[in-house]
């Protein structure tokens, strides 16, 4: 599919490479999350547009699942609403295709949504709609071997999650498995806004940066510009913001979310964003 952007021949190569390239400029990549179909099927598009206007480097799109056990109450509320709104897989792919030409898109998707569709077919649809990568919170690397191979053939990147509880030996396995970015979970817990950057996050980033050749993005609980700057200083090459933005969308709509993201971008550019 043709790219709506003119600047880079780098983007034409493969979605997975495009995804890694989004991190390549020595500035901290901004990865806002939104739930497809929230607050309404139409309203979700406005949220995505606001993210792009605010300078999102990668857009993470949540495919709503009935039982999101890695998510806290804020994101659960959005996925429940999205399901009530009728955000099925067909809608999610259509939604992704609307943005994938303008910024790399990753899907946050629970494994049963993939399994029910059939892994092969899911990957074909993802590739066909320009999806660059997948974050699958309930598919640890050991269960993902065959799936990863299939994804590789379709040119869709896998972004494995690692946590403060992940031991070094597993980090190495995850490093081998990663083809997009590595999603560093900042804290033992579910998604949700937190005031400060958790202690374990800094140590995790240090370990990850030693072992991974793909970029490291930090997520779960980043809810202030200060925490994002801290994450960047600790070595995060990207920050993923979800619950905080979904809360802002709930309270103030897409424009408010865009405004908050611009503040975050500015803080990162002022702060440690030029590390490396």
């Amino acid at each position, binding site marked *: 599919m043709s790219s709506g952007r003119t600047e880079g021949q780098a983007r034409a190569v493969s979605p997975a490479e495009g995804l890694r390239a989004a991190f390549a400029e020595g500035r901290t990549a901004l990865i806002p999350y939104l739930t497809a179909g929230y607050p309404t099927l139409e309203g979700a598009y406005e949220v995505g547009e606001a993210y792009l206007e605010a300078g999102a480097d990668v857009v993470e799109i949540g495919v709503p699942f009935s039982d999101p056990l890695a998510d806290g109450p804020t994101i*659960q509320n959005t996925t429940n609403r999205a399901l009530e709104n009728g955000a099925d897989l067909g809608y999610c792919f259509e939604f992704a295709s609307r943005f994938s030409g303008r910024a790399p898109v990753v899907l946050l998707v629970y494994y049963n949504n993939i399994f029910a569709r059939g892994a092969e077919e899911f990957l074909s649809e993802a590739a066909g709609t320009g999806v660059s990568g997948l974050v699958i919170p309930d598919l*640890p690397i050991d269960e993902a071997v065959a799936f990863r191979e299939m994804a590789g053939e379709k040119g869709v990147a896998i972004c494995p999650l690692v946590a403060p509880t992940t031991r070094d030996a597993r980090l190495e396995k995850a490093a081998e498995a990663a083809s997009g970015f590595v999603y560093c979970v900042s804290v033992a817990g579910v998604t949700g806004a937190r005031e400060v950057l958790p202690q374990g996050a800094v140590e995790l980033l240090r370990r990850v940066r030693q072992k991974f050749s793909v970029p490291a993005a930090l997520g779960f609980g980043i809810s202030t510009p200060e925490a994002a700057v801290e994450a960047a200083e600790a070595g995060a090459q990207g920050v993923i913001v979800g619950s905080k933005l979904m809360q802002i969308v709930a309270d103030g709509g897409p424009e408010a979310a865009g405004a908050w993201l611009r503040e975050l971008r500015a803080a990162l550019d002022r702060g440690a964003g030029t590390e490396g």
Partner: protein
Amino acid sequence: MQQETDKTGYFGSFGGRYVPETLIHALEELEEAYERYKGDPEFVEELEGLSRDFVGRATPFMFAERLTRKWGGANVWFKREDLAHTGAHKINNALGQILLADRMGKSRIIAETGAGQHGVATATVAALYGKECVVYMGEEDTRRQAPNVLRMKLLGAEVRPVTSGSGTLKAALNEAIRDWVTNVEDTHYIIGTVAGPAPYPRIVRDLQAVIGRETEAQARERLGGDPDAVVACVGGGSNAIGIFHPFVGREGVRLVGVEAAGRGLETGEHGASLTGGAPGVLHGSLSYVLQTADGQIREAHSISAGLDYPSVGPEHAYLKDEGLVEYVSVTDEEALEAFLSCSRLEGIIPALESAHAISYAEGLAKELGPGMNMVVNMSGRGDKDIGVVAEHLGIDAREAEEASGDE
């Protein structure tokens, strides 16, 4: 042929470990602890001693004479798990796991519960071992099973009602897993059934297999050999796996698992994952799941809170696909009828869960015919269910008393 899980925790193609990365280390730790202690003489002695003195094992093996006569078919035997301490088989698993948690140095215990039986069992062993205990229970279930909520509180546990989804067992499991992800360092999750990520299905099965081992020995003594059939209800499937385990693949022993058909399979309002579901991933393992074409998990329905679950332990999925166990289903109405006949004819008020097994047993007894022997797992007692039953019969407690006086 005896099935065993390999190291990755699969039963055939079912099982696995589909959980957030944060929990992987805890599951590995649990697996190591289990491998280390399951054969450890001190562990075994402690478990067997408490099973005897605290739980009251071995549970009796009883001839149900009046039901046998009424049905006019095979001899009906009850394995009386309802007589185990706390009133159900759930204590077998909770006790074994608290021993493990204690050895792993975990100070905090969490559990999910549907009917409340597993919650009560967990609160009980937590009290016995002096551990902090939090039990997640769907809000709807806290209403349906109010006496069990009180029991848990009396035992010192905190009961957290869960309002998400339909407020039943599925939602309680989600919340328990979220708690565990958050507090994994000091917390052990005592899952109540043979579901969840590896190694849980295997650990829970091994701990519940005491039911089957006792049944096997008791049948040998009383019947001079194996029974011709064994019937058990299946929600998550722990009492069924427990009693089936030694008999799986054994010639001449029919194993029958009875799921909840709720308002009828054709209505879509049921809890029969094996009969009416398709393979999928929920709560950490690949098994049969009630779901939409898009892979969204459907809400289950059953009059019995313990069978109100849209998935089933992965070993059952394997046993079904291999044809080693027959899986059937029984509606709410049929289970209620069996609940009443068992109460009136045998003097045992069965759990609504167990009533599903009793209901199917009637037809099977007739099919097998006189002279054959059929064991029904009386997995729990029904005191907790009298409110639900009264409501369904459209009578209040006083009327119920009068009605029973008319008999």
